[in-house]
């Protein structure tokens, strides 16, 4: 289905003036971001305002919460969207006092605000009142200061007394009477797919409570991007967010935001190459997700995980031919791509076609044989780790996790970029919301991606030789107008990967914020796993498909 024919169901038309009228004296000002109209509201009216926005104007997705510090104030921006039509956007800006940065928490309206506000508190230092559990999320509890503020001293060492860490579990000892045990799963555990720590409270083998503890892989990506120039220095960083082969999609997320911010046009030919590259990345990422998930459910000596890695390797080879790199591609440029399809072109296209037309269908049959049709596998995965549709919306889930819960959302179709709207492909959804449907959606998406890649190859093959423009004319130094703000997202392998940039008149961003899909998806884990057995917790975690590099950034 192409977007041109897609009429979003349940989308609500929103007129900014109407919103301002409805919100009345809660509004203290208006603004215009590049992507959406914005209203500025009083910091003690956040809950009321967002409740109105959600219930009356249909904004059921809180995409992102961005916090910023200015010389005279702090600001939290709530980026609102509608699942049914993500192009209907709205920004709620909440300024707070520079000396006492306090504003009302939105966690009671949108569950997803819980983690996002914790991050804002952690890095910027805004205190959200009535937040259910306002503590640091990326940095250790013992950290002093808020790193993204202007008065933070980066050179001062963070000295932590040994006593503070001597026995962090001392408070958790529950005595001999207790029926539950606290189990630390991770930071080093075979099934956490990286350095993730789950504090699991067990009642026998049953999970009574699970609390993800993240931040072990925090590498200050946002700050590094704020210190790089738009034109060249930022592009290598996105490869390092979702590093499991989804690099090109990440690069596109930055490229899309920056191109909209600086009003750069991208030649059609480059868009085709980008689309093909992004879908190859998605396939590689999904293969890896499948392989590691199979490890979690089958055990470590099984054939299917190796088959998935074998197929990923084929995609990886194609991406290597295209970009010259296996993992950290750094292939996209603002206004285009780094270089054209490698010569000899025919050979490259032959390779891609061989993969999509012959090898992939064969290995997909194998996957369906060994995995989705396997009865023991179904016994393990059907009906466990269920994420209900409305709950998924509350947590801002995206990508295959949301689509497996019956939410028909895909930014490639609903907020088209590249040439997705000219191609013939489908958005895969499933209603069950369990572990099985998440895996199934991912497997089917690989087939759809292959379809897209195939169509892109056809387009590229027939492209006239003198019209192969891979890069538009972009100034050597980009200085977008001060105070231009944009939030733009692409459909990452894991869901909505959004970038917020505020320009400050220099050649570097004033604020660079990454909305990570894994971050939101991981926050749904307690909803899936509580009340289930340990193996279901592991299967649920595997089916979310988290990349800790993207969760922690």
């Amino acid at each position, binding site marked *: 289905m192409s977007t041109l024919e897609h009429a979003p169901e349940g989308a609500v038309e929103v007129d900014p003036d109407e919103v301002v009228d409805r919100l009345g004296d809660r509004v203290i000002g208006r603004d215009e971001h590049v992507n959406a109209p914005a209203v500025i509201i009083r910091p003690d009216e956040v809950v009321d305002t967002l409740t109105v926005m959600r219930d009356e104007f249909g904004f059921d997705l809180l995409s992102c919460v961005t916090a910023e510090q200015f010389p005279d104030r702090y600001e939290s921006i709530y980026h609102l969207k509608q699942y049914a039509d993500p192009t209907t956007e709205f920004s709620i800006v909440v300024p707070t006092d520079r000396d006492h940065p306090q504003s009302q928490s939105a966690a009671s309206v949108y569950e997803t605000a819980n983690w996002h506000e914790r991050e804002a508190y952690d890095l910027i230092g805004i205190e959200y009142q009535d937040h259910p559990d306002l503590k640091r999320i990326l940095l250790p509890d013992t950290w002093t200061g808020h790193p993204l503020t202007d008065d933070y001293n980066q050179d001062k060492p963070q000295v932590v007394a040994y006593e503070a860490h001597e026995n962090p579990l001392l408070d958790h000892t529950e005595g001999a009477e207790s029926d539950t045990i606290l189990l630390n799963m991770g930071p080093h555990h075979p099934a956490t797919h990286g350095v993730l720590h789950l504090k699991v409270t067990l009642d026998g083998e049953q999970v009574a409570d699970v609390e993800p503890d993240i931040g072990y892989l925090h590498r200050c990506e946002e700050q590094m991007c704020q210190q790089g120039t738009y034109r060249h220095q930022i592009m290598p960083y996105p490869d390092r967010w979702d590093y499991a082969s989804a690099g090109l999609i990440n690069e596109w997320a930055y490229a899309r935001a920056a191109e909209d911010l600086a009003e750069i046009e991208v030649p059609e030919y480059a868009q085709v190459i980008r689309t093909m590259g992004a879908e190859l990345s998605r396939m590689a990422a999904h293969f890896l997700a499948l392989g590691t998930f199979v490890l979690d459910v089958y055990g470590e000596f099984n054939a299917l995980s*190796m088959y998935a890695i074998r197929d990923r390797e084929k995609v990886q080879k194609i991406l290597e031919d295209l970009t010259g790199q296996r993992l950290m591609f750094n292939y996209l440029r603002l206004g285009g791509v780094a270089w054209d399809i490698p010569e000899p072109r025919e050979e490259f296209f032959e390779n891609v076609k061989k993969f999509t037309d012959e090898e992939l269908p064969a290995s997909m049959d194998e996957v369906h044989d060994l995995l989705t049709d396997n009865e023991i596998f179904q016994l393990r995965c059907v009906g466990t780790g269920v994420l209900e549709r409305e709950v998924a919306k509350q947590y801002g889930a995206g990508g295959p996790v949301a689509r497996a819960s019956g939410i028909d959302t895909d930014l490639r179709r609903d907020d088209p970029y590249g040439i997705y709207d000219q191609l013939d492909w489908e958005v895969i959804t499933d209603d069950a919301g369990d572990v099985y449907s998440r895996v199934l959606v991912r497997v089917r998406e690989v087939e759809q991606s292959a379809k897209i890649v195939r169509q892109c190859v056809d387009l590229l093959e027939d492209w006239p030789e003198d019209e192969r423009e891979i890069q538009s004319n972009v100034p050597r130094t980009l200085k977008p107008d001060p105070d231009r703000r944009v939030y733009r997202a692409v459909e990452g392998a894991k869901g909505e990967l959004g970038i917020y940039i505020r320009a400050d008149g220099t050649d570097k961003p004033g604020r660079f914020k990454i909305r990570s899909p894994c971050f939101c998806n991981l926050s749904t884990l307690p909803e899936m796993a509580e009340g289930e057995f340990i*193996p279901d917790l592991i299967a649920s975690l595997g089916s979310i498909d988290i990349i800790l590099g993207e969760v922690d950034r």
Partner: protein
Amino acid sequence: MGLPVTPLETVLLPERIVDALGLEGYGVLGEFVAGLLAAFLVANIMLIMTAVAGPWAKRKIRARFTDAIAVNRVGPFGLLIIVADAVRLLSKEIIIPEGVDRPAWELAPIIVALSALLGFAVIPMGSGIHVADPEVGAVFVFAVASLSSVGLVMGGYASNNKYSMLGGLRAVAQNIAYEIPLILIAVSVVVFAGTLRMSEIVAVQAEPLILVAGIAIPSWFAIVNPFAFFLFLIANLAEVGRNPFDTPEAPNEIIAGYQTEYSGVYFVLFYLGEFIHIFLGGAIIATFFLGGPAGPVLPGFVWFLIKIWAIFLLTQWARSAVPRVRIDQLLDIGWKGLLVLSFLNLILTALIVGVIAA
């Protein structure tokens, strides 16, 4: 005419050693020394097989299933990896965690390895390799094999680690749930054979069952009662803890279960115990269902090895292909499925045997 059947060995290995070394004059002492030598020989055969299986064969077999290559750098076909791995494993540091319950913690791996080795004492391996043949051989082999559960729960409990604890408990729950069906199926064989003595169980299977195109098909219990054979194979997978029943270790769930805290030689002992257990499972299946060492042309002992390696291959195949079931599903399958079916099998066998006898 018929299939050539290896004649049943009535002379046990210790007696042969007494003869060969001229120990007749030393009475009980001579028999004792001969028995020790026989046990040493059999144990070493098993240890060599484990050494081949663990570092080399297992990896090669798995590689075949998974489109991989596996060890091929050290020696021809990578065979010298066995030496390299042995040196590596034995030279690793033994880390003893704080608060472990010694000596239970140290005894656990020894019990696991020992219990599996003891079982081979009563297995007739053909070509005269048979250490002891008591009247209650079948009872003995199951009794010592289930001793390993004690080792597992000791290791799990003594390790002072929650993952080990969970693994130890899972191991016991699983072994109880699957040992009962295992033994009930074995009982059906015993009812059919009318004896608990291992050599006689093998002898009964040597009788020709039917003639097909001039070749006598022996009355192996796998052919007489394929249903029981199939059940036994499944229960055996659970007994040795391989997919789809490897929940006690389940590395992706509980790290490595009861063996999480073991390193160095203790870890080797646990692994050794596991592999010997798989071979013991194969040996039991060969003895009870596949005619023991019987087979054409080749010597009995070679046939015996072929049969237990075939069972080993089966466990590795299962490991490569099927998912792990959840612990509650595993217990459901054991108590509600296998137990009922094995009782059914036993009653039917008893009825048929009764009718034939009448």
